[in-house]
């Protein structure tokens, strides 16, 4: 076209970013790549092609990592760990700072390489992915420097196996490697098989930065390589970002291995527009929500919820906006959407959309490239929550939409999902925004914005979007373990029935179960006798079964108001429990003596400590503050501490009263509801609490106690979809079985093989409170 013609048509024309330097880098350092292990690049092994999805052209050959490769990498990381973890905070900080500087120096090379390999628009790689990755290393250089002062009494975990997805290859690498290194761990990282190149370039800058050998190891390959990392006995922690299906498999595979685990998985995040929103801005936000990175974003606002009165207007304006989107060569600086990562992805999206028969499907009338892996921006309106496309993650540029009538209905529809990663809401009403944001089931909530990320702000999900947080102090903590002294949990068997004829019992006292604030007979109708060490019959306890757990969970779920009670109010209840326990201290001490045959002094000490502990958590109830993350926007990012919901807790045997209190108290102090399975050996210490709870204004359903076999009951709790977390300090538990069962709804698990001395200070405080809370980050940009 001549200049004169363009003068008339005013078209954009091509604006290509050159691929020359990136291709030259591939040619020089490849085109076949090995792994990066122990500071050096290995010779390529059996390889596969990595392609440019926009053209289908092969870029390089990548080595398929074998189990031996993973062995070598884990060995290198294990060898490097002692020295690296003992470096001074400042020394580690300098290494992270050096990596940040080098990322900055090679910014454009990283950006172009990313776009070539992934298909994302160069603008996104250049203006979002790479700057955020740099920022992550800078921020974590600071966290490395401050680790010991900010998180005292913590130590690095060891070798971290890290598996990252293909949608933000370098950024996800930064999210994984920066905190791991800052905390003092060493890593074996596997990039996604579609997008290994920027990880290999990163390996190169690790060499350039003089990072000690073996601290960072990159092993390429597909899911088989990932599995070798996950199941390797040498990896102490697994951090995974990817699909919920793979996350679930990792949960199952690591069950019982004692590995620390964080999972950042899929989502179907709601995007709510209230009638008083700035509609044009909300629509522009949708471009960043669902057409960012071709919609291949775990936290993409993919479920549009519009207030009914403005729905038609919003859809009309949205369609007009969609028509302005430009698809094309990802290296073109003037396009909005590039290529999907792989034809496999394209086929999957097409299959899902084509299978839909409901609503009205609108494909943006945009020019589509003739070849390459492109999918048009798509809006499907008129769906209902029952439509599969409203429930299932599409992971592509497809937005589905429905309407709501009231704020509470918006929350209900928004939360009608298996996922809980992110949520967006638009309103100009501060009252509405701050009321709704905490009610949304999501780890991250954006108010009048979307897809804001920063190294200082925790990111992560709830429900089947996974667990664990990345970013900020909370993210750093996920790469550390407390150094408090613990000892292995030893199972204690119930006292067997005496062989001689027992003494004649007094007035029968049979402890039932405690469900919903009432004593309930066990569903099965069986009880078991509890004997003192001297052979006296102390009483009977019910044998709880699946149905009792079901009832208890129902009661706990029904007591949701507890989470909304003020911290002050919950503190009052905890103090009241302490008061009533104190009033009956002698009775409880006698019970402990009878059960465990301990000395009266020890029994009294246990009761006293239990009262003390209740006071501690009463104190904490209104003091577990969140924080304001210092993010680089005009606005606040509030990292709020929220209760998890319903927690199943298997109590320890060795301190039958104090152990139970040590689990119940932090859980309810933070607003959770508990289903406690008491010590199997000495359950009466816990069942005696019924009357204490009854007289202490504990709302029914907040504390539920089900006696019975901890493994059986734990199994039911682990598998229950309406239980949010499972804790265990029970002896003789098969952790593998419980953790495997927890994969169903990907609940948080805290299955301990060691325990603190329950009478000591290590048995209360921050560690327990962290387990009892979830971090929800609420971003609120503002501006007059």
């Amino acid at each position, binding site marked *: 076209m001549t200049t004169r013609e363009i003068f008339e048509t005013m078209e954009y024309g091509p604006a290509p970013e050159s691929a020359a330097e990136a291709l030259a880098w591939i040619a020089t350092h490849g085109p076949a790549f090995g792994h990066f292990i122990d500071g050096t690049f290995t010779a390529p092994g059996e390889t596969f092609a990595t392609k440019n999805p926009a053209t289908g052209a092969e870029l390089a050959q990548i080595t398929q990592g074998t189990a031996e490769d993973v062995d070598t990498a884990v060995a290198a990381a294990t060898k490097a760990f002692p020295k690296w973890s003992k470096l001074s905070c400042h020394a580690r900080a300098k290494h992270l700072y050096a990596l940040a500087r080098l990322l900055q120096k090679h910014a454009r090379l990283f950006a172009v390489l990313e776009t070539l390999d992934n298909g994302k628009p160069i603008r996104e790689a250049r203006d979002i992915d790479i700057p955020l990755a740099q920022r992550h290393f800078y921020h974590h250089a600071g966290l490395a420097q401050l680790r010991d002062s900010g998180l005292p009494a913590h130590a690095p975990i060891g070798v971290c196996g890290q598996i990252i997805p293909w949608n933000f290859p370098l950024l996800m690498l930064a999210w994984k490697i920066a905190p791991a290194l800052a905390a003092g761990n060493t890593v074996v990282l596997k990039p996604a098989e579609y997008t290994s190149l920027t990880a290999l370039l990163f390996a190169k800058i690790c060499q350039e930065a003089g990072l000690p050998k073996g601290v960072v190891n990159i092993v390429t390959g597909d899911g088989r390589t990932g599995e070798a990392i996950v199941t390797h006995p040498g990896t102490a922690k697994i951090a995974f970002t990817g699909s919920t299906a793979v996350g679930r498999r990792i949960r199952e595979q690591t069950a019982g291995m004692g590995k620390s685990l964080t999972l950042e998985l899929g989502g179907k995040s709601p995007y709510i527009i209230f009638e008083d929103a700035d509609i044009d*801005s909300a629509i522009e936000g949708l471009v960043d929500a669902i057409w960012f990175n071709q919609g291949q974003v775990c936290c993409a606002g993919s479920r549009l919820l519009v207030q009914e009165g403005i729905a038609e207007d919003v859809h009309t304006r949205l369609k007009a906006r969609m028509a302005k989107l430009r698809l094309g060569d990802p290296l073109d600086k003037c396009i909005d959407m590039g290529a999907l990562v792989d034809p496999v992805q394209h086929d999957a999206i097409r299959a899902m959309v084509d299978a839909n028969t409901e609503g009205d499907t609108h494909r943006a009338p945009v020019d589509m490239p003739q070849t390459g892996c492109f999918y048009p921006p798509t809006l499907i309106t008129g769906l209902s929550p029952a439509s599969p496309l409203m429930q299932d993650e599409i992971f592509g540029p497809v937005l589905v939409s429905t309407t709501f009538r009231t704020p509470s209905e918006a929350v209900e529809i928004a939360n009608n999902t298996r996922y809980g990663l992110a949520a967006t809401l638009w309103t100009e009403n501060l009252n509405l925004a701050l009321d709704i944001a905490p009610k949304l089931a999501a780890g991250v909530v954006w108010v009048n914005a979307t897809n804001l990320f920063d190294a200082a702000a925790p990111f992560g999900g709830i429900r089947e979007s996974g667990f664990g947080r990345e970013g900020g102090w909370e993210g750093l903590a996920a790469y550390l373990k407390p150094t408090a002294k613990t000892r292995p949990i030893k199972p204690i068997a119930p006292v067997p029935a005496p062989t001689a004829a027992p003494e004649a019992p007094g007035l029968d006292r049979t402890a039932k179960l405690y469900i919903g604030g009432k004593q309930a007979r066990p569903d099965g109708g069986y009880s078991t006798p509890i004997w003192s060490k001297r052979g006296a019959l102390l009483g009977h306890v019910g044998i709880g079964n699946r149905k009792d757990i079901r009832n208890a969970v129902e009661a706990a779920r029904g007591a949701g108001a507890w989470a909304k009670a003020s911290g002050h109010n919950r503190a009052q209840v905890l103090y009241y429990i302490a008061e009533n326990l104190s009033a009956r201290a002698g009775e409880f001490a006698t019970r402990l003596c009878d059960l465990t045959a301990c000395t009266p002094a020890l029994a009294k000490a246990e009761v006293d400590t239990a009262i003390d502990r209740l006071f501690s958590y009463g104190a904490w109830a209104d003091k577990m503050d969140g924080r304001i993350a210092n993010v680089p926007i005009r606005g606040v990012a509030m990292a709020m501490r929220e209760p998890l919901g319903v927690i199943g807790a298997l109590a320890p045997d060795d301190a039958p009263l104090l152990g139970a209190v040590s689990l119940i108290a932090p859980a309810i102090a933070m607003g959770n509801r508990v289903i406690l399975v008491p010590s199997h050996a000495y359950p009466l210490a816990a069942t005696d609490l019924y009357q204490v709870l009854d007289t202490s204004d504990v709302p029914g359903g907040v504390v539920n106690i089900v006696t019975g076999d901890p493994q059986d009951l734990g199994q039911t709790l682990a598998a229950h979809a309406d239980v949010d977390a499972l804790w265990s300090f029970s002896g003789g538990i098969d952790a593998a079985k419980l953790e495997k069962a927890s994969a169903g709804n990907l609940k948080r698990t805290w299955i301990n093989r060691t325990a603190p001395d329950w009478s000591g200070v290590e048995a209360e405080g921050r560690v327990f409170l962290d387990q009892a809370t979830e971090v929800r980050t609420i971003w609120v940009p503002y501006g007059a």
Partner: protein
Amino acid sequence: MTPTQTKTAPLTQEHLPQLHRPRNPGMALDLDWVARVQANTSAIERRAATLPGRRTVKKEYQAAWLARAITLIDLTTLAGDDTPGRVRRLCAKARQPVRPDLLDALGLPPLTTGAVCVYHEMVGTAVEALAGTGIPVAAVSTGFPAGLSPYHLRVKEIEESVKAGAAEIDIVISRRHVLTGNWQALYDEMREFRAACGDAHVKAILATGELGTLKNVARASLVCMMAGADFIKTSTGKESVNATLPVSLTMIRAIRAYEAATGIKVGYKPAGGISKAKDALVYLSLMKEELGDDWLRPDLFRFGASSLLGDIERQLEHHVTGAYSTGWRHPMA
């Protein structure tokens, strides 16, 4: 086009909007609509901040777009020391804004700027200097820039400028009506100004730098359009903050809403602070993205600028020669 052809502007009236599309007749003041208007500042700023990274034009596209930008400039002098001689020089530059050899090299037709914009006293001189070119003369009016002279004199000033030959009148609104939420007063004032303009087109200068919030900018834009403004314009150039991308986005979204409701296209003129060729390209892509290609023509879009032309000339020469240019290679105004 052959290189030997003489470069003079064609005698068309393409600048005059009334030949192309109906003028904005306005509508009754709809206070419900005004009350509904929202403008989320941080979201608008984010869109404005990322737009330059999302759209760009290169090579011959850039040259063509810059040439287009020239045709959209209201070449302006609004200084206390303006004289007839100074204004005649400006008009001469408006007639031939770019060196003919550069236009030849680019294969472009003769260009003129969109208009010449002056104070009332200079209207006659400008009309005379531009006779036969088709370039309209715009007069700033109504007690520009503060708009605080006696009301009847402000109306009278419009009439005088129209009588003197101004085809476009850039009025300033009473900011106090916006700041006190007196939308009826703003509407009535704008209505009367428009009536005083007669056939001359009226641009409503909102002086956005003095309106306090983007929401006020949006509401003032809407009220002025309801009262029949043909164009809405950001600034006088005399406020401490002039045209910005967030303000522009707010105003052109109001234009879009007004078109959706009435079918009438209202023009937009950012003024003040746009001095670089690159800025002009960003504004053009903003118009193209948010409103469409119709707003890349002088009947619906103008730049209020004085030094922008010089930078565009240098960029065009760079495009032709491959070497960076300098100011004195281009004729001054």
